[in-house]
């Protein structure tokens, strides 16, 4: 059981990375790493929406904030591994690459792909986040009190 939880946590992490990857990036890294294996569609890429929720006051009762576009698909490798993708936007080719990576991560190719696809994606996303945070930090106000001239 513990194994399942650990595997799920890792899978959750890489699926999140793939969902947030910029247009075409995951596919480019995948194709640089290996030749795509054959697969069959369990669910061909499909564009739809997900209703995003917020909470009143940030922490209270949930409410419907609005929808976002999402592309999903599922496929099966000849070896039996099943890959899923749910990614933001209308991006069928990206969804296909994400589902392939998800499936391949469950095979012996996983270790290679971790180094050649997931780690670069994670590093790029962290760098982009860090660059924005650094610009925000530069706009932080440093208050200082003027000396009052009354006495």
């Amino acid at each position, binding site marked *: 059981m513990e194994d399942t939880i650990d595997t799920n946590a890792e899978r959750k992490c890489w699926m999140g990375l793939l969902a947030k990857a910029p247009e075409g990036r995951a596919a480019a890294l995948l194709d640089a790493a290996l030749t795509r294996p054959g697969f069959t569609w369990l669910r061909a890429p499909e*564009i739809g929406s*997900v209703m995003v*929720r*917020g909470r009143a006051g*940030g922490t209270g009762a949930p409410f419907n904030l609005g929808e976002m*576009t999402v592309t999903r698909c599922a496929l099966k490798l000849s070896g039996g591994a099943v890959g899923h993708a749910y990614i*933001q936007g*209308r991006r069928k080719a990206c969804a296909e690459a994400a589902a392939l990576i998800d499936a391949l991560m469950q095979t012996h190719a996983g270790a290679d792909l971790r180094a050649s696809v997931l780690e670069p994606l994670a590093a790029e996303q962290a760098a982009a986040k860090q660059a924005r945070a650094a610009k925000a930090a530069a706009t932080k106000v440093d208050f200082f009190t003027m000396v009052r001239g009354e006495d």
Partner: protein
Amino acid sequence: MYVAVKGGERAIENAHAWLAEERRGDTGVAELDIAQIREQLSLSVNRVMAEGSLYDQDLAALAIKQARGDLIEAIFLIRAYRTTLPRFGCSEAVDTGAMACDRRISATFKDVPGGQVLGPTFDYTHRLLDFKLAADGEVPPAPEREATTAPVPHVTGFLNREGLIEEAPQDDTPPPDLTREPLEMPAERPLRLQALTRADEGFTLSLAYSTQRGYGRNHAFVGELRIGTVPVEMEIPELGFAIEIGEISLTECETVNQFTGSKSEPPQFTRGYGLVFGQTERKAISMALVDRALRWKELGEDDAGAPAQDAEFVLYHCDNIQATGFLEHIKLPHYVDFQSELELVRKLRREAGADQSHAGGTS
């Protein structure tokens, strides 16, 4: 009597062809592409996503191009497209406490932990036209400073510690959805918040302003305004666990409102809440003020009869697509309706002898 009228087809086709030509404008000027609109008119894109109630920057940019920059028309296009999408499910509620903030300010606490972070704001600009923008597009890179990406705590948390502000305890009741069931009164807060977050910015702004001028006054301060990105998580049935499916940018505003207490509540600060897609702070602040005004009943306040306190008035008039649909339909052919009105007025005038007095030249 219903009279079918035909004959407009060619005129309509030609009108559409001319519309396309006018949309393009002078062909000697380079055509806008979707990426330019997305990147350089991003606040228009954000408004279209928020009021169109669909987060997709490229679609919003396309709608703006197609609508020749008419944002309500663009919102209409997005709303119409939205109805064609199958819905895969609902996300977990986003955690705005974990937001990667571009901007985060508090008007109530100068020394708030995490600091006052101004972000890419128009505030403190001089509102003078910048003719350099008409010349070249070179922009020096924005300065950077060492930063952590640790989450910044919500300001209201600090007041909560002293019990000086009402709490917003977690509750997991599935919210109603006005895109699935018609909006009906009385509307609970989750339904009101859904209507307000997609409401017309101008209408929401005016109502919020009316509360500041005294129509249902509730003495709002901006406790916190934050803009940034949050991940969106959804439980995936075929996996049996939740994953991040993307990341969206949001503006959140929490107001802190003076409250002297009522029959049911002790004196403490109360809260209004605004949460809107994209960088949309005028709308988020407006939403928070109107949300707070609409809460008068649950807080045991008096009904001052102010428009912003009237949920039925606010919620049934805040949607610009409903409003423009009903408003603009009166310009479409009403020949038959009008013919019967004309007959009626002529008949009434005959009965009143008005035709004779008109003939007599009174004016």
